[in-house]
């Protein structure tokens, strides 16, 4: 099935619902065309594309729910998938936590998540763009490994209680690692956009090249607590774990960093520096995202952390009803407010510190304190008296992003950034942090 318009989706979903005999029926249609070009050792390695779509039908009899999916769209198939979901619903055990289907929702206008130029990317465009990256690589006598991927997709949902939602989107993501021929230096850059016109592969590759060349001959310095300047790429992989861990039910049940003794939560408490404000806004020009959540609820502009205070946490519909609160769904993307300090100014104002390009292999160590471990990678530099003095060997850290955001020194201007761990896009400022805990050294380059 090609990418369908809002009207086409509406017509198809209405047709599916007409087959329903269940108390409630909810139908979801989504699909995407995606293609990529991967390169390594200064040549193409693998490349491909696929196109797929899925129709999901959820039928409910009382609190018994059945879900069936299909990817064929003739009338016989559509009726078949509805009957099958009804059959599953009759077999399924009753779930007391099942929530009734939502009625019609008031959605704000669609954010600018779709861009025609991005949707028009073809194999030639990808090869031409990667050729630009390879040209810069070879000029600098480096070895490239990179990845360019473009996606055009849509999602839509409708139910027999009157809800209908539709969103389409495009994404293009590029990342590149450049290594010196002797393997003693490495630099990285990554960029993601809805609109391909914002992507400058040459500029990104040049940044990675500069870091690769500058990172040769890294020296070992003792692990310990250091002032660090985290570039947005590095900060995002820690900050996304705060947003992901802000689930209300876990907090209420006492098994979250937001749980407090006595069955209470830290909602409303100040846990971070005054300058920390994190919010989500589907209508952000720089970071648009879907205006409806996976369960059909409207997304809202929501402040999660306001001047260091936990302002909101996200709720499932069931838990919100149980707690009798306004239910805010989890955001797709998030933005952290920053300041006006440039990265260069941050370096100049640092007496002794470490500049970190990228963090890698981030894993939770303790959910109670949101402690994470991971390593620096692809460009780690020692700063002294306001200047980058020399590249340093990579470190392992053990740090909680909550503790980190209490040790904030300076914030820079937010940049759109792609997480190397989850793949999400976010707007994150560079951050200067004191007392960041490095626990051991790594020889990896």
């Amino acid at each position, binding site marked *: 099935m090609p990418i369908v318009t809002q009207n086409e989706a509406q017509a198809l979903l209405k047709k599916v619902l007409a087959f329903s005999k269940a108390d409630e029926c909810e139908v979801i249609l989504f699909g995407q065309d995606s293609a990529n070009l991967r390169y390594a050792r200064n040549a*193409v390695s693998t490349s491909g594309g696929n196109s797929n779509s899925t129709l999901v039908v959820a039928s409910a009899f009382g609190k018994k729910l059945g879900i069936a999916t299909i990817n064929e769209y003739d009338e016989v198939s559509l009726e078949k998938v509805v009957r099958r979901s009804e059959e599953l619903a009759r077999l399924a055990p009753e779930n007391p936590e099942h929530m009734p289907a939502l009625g019609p929702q008031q959605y704000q206008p669609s954010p600018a998540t779709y861009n025609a130029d991005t949707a028009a990317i073809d194999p030639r465009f990808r090869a031409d763009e990667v050729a630009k990256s390879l040209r810069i690589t070879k000029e600098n006598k480096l070895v490239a490994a990179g990845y360019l991927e473009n996606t055009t997709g849509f999602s839509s949902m409708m139910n027999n209680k009157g809800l209908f939602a539709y969103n389409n989107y495009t994404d293009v993501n590029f990342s590149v690692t450049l290594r010196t021929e002797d393997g003693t230096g490495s630099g990285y850059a990554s960029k993601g956009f809805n609109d391909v016109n914002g992507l400058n592969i040459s500029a990104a590759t040049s940044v990675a090249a500069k870091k690769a060349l500058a990172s040769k001959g890294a020296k070992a310095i003792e692990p310990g607590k250091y002032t660090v300047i985290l570039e947005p790429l590095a900060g995002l992989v820690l900050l996304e774990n705060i947003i992901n861990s802000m689930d209300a039910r876990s907090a209420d049940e006492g098994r979250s*960093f937001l749980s407090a003794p006595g069955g209470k939560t830290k909602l409303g408490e100040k846990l971070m520096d005054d300058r920390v404000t994190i919010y989500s806004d589907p209508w952000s020009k720089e970071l648009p995202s879907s205006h409806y959540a996976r369960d059909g609820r409207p997304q809202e502009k929501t402040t999660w952390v306001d001047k260091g205070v936990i302002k909101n946490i996200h709720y499932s519909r069931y838990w919100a009803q149980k707690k009798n609160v306004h239910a805010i769904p989890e955001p797709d993307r998030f933005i952290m407010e920053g300041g006006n300090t440039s990265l260069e100014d941050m370096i100049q104002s640092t007496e002794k510190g470490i500049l970190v390009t990228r963090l890698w292999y981030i894993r939770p160590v303790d959910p109670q304190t949101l402690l994470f471990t991971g390593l620096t990678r692809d460009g780690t530099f020692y700063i002294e008296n306001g200047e980058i003095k020399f590249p340093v060997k990579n470190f392992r850290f053990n740090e909680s992003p909550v503790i980190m955001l209490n040790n904030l020194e300076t914030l820079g201007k937010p940049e759109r950034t792609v997480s190397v761990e989850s793949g999400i896009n976010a707007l994150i400022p560079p951050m200067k942090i004191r007392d960041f805990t490095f626990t051991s050294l790594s020889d990896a380059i």
Partner: protein
Amino acid sequence: MKRRQFLQMAGMGMGAGLLAQIPLVGHAVSLDRPWYTIDVARKKELADVALNAARSKGATYTDVRIGRYLNQFIITREDKVENIANTESYGIGIRVIANGSWGFAATDKMDRDSIARTAALAVSIAKENARLLTEPVQLAPQKGYGEVSWKTPIEINAFDVPVKEKAELLLSVNDAALKGGASYVGSNLFLVNEQKYFASSEGSYIDQDIHRIWPYFDVTKVDAATGKFEVRESLGAPRGMGYEYLVPRESDKIKGITTLYRDRYDILEDARQSARQVEEKLKAKSVEPGKYDLVLDPTNLWLTIHESVGHPTELDRVMGYEANFAGTSFLTLDKWKSGNFNFGSPIVNLVADKLQPGSLGAVGYDDEGVATQQWDLIKNGKLVNYQTTRDQAHIIGLDHSQGCSYSQSWSDVQFQRMPNVSLQPGTAKLSPADIIKNVERGIFIAGRGSFSIDQQRYNFQFGGQLFYEIRNGQITGMLKDVAYQSNTQEFWNSCKAIADKSDYRLGGSFFDGKGQPMQSSAVSHGASTARFNGVNVINTARKI
């Protein structure tokens, strides 16, 4: 099964809305629908359409994978079944070489015209990419096997077991944990059946039927007064087995400070002991950081093997093909060529094996039609080999591939993935108890915990589920806040004892991520309990 698919399934409630993010769930399958396969003659007919279309467009080599991937997820918490979902994905992936370059395309439209168009697209992508080549793809020779088949040797097809029975087992697990004092418990059962058909322009038509099972739970105990909580995860492993894995046998139990399991898993018993242990964890002593002799149970050691041996011996990483994402490897070709690189102590022998019965990685043929095999990676502590696919074998002078190609789905391109990589048991009679009784100051660790390793696989940090302090040859009590850090080479050189084969067990991962776009693979790692001297242990307790 794709990791994202699993995470979405595991995380979703009964609202269908969350399914919107699941890619490629494909066709629907009734919960108790009889298990079936697609007729092999039909698959051959469709494969021939692709092979002929690709050849007519200029492909010099083509392989075709027709996949039907069936998953079942049963997800419960406390006394509720949160979700039961069956998903099926059916389609074709076509990989070609044209003008010396790889090209790949996939479709779920299984008619002849769509397949021919997809083959033509794969060829056009290969030709477009050829201008970015520095050297043409070089394939190791591979004879066509003709029409052959292979099946995971299961005793009970888990898809044939009524859903009600499986859900009731999980609810019993939850009940056992709650009655034992747990505050919360969640349990899941994940079943996978990969029906894979491979055909190539070299004359192979390979039909395989692969089964995997993963029963899992986690138990949480909250101390409301202090606000502290602890979690204990199940100690059972995912396996390449049928439902017989969940039919317990006393002969498969290893009794000790906690009961551990070989080839059959008593999930109910494990849930009962987890409820006791999670309570004990709340009261446990916080570890004093420093150097300890670690006695690592296979339920913990498998993940250390995976990260510090499995990944760095992947030849694509060694060569730089994963440099942008998963990283490279410290086990560079010069170290292998020397024939004398000291990876570990002389008792350390690590074997790659895609034949091992009951393992997650066992198949008859890999995803480019190479019959599977077993070979040494580390022999008596020395690096002796890597893991290869057909286009890598020539790099290390092999005239054949080692059969390490895998794709998570028909819609993703296959590439080099890890076989089962296992530590061989000690040759002398030695039990875990024998090992512990010689430890003066140490920690016994069981279960998988936090894990992280650098991009060249030197520096790592691992946690666990259960930590027991050893003093003067005796286990003295439980510890918490434990993580061990080491360097791969130092760690394996500190290996001073390995229990014998009577203690050998498989651990494993359903979701080992690698590649761009990232793909998941399932892989097992066997080991017997082993001792590592003088490993650095840190204390992970913090305050916020």
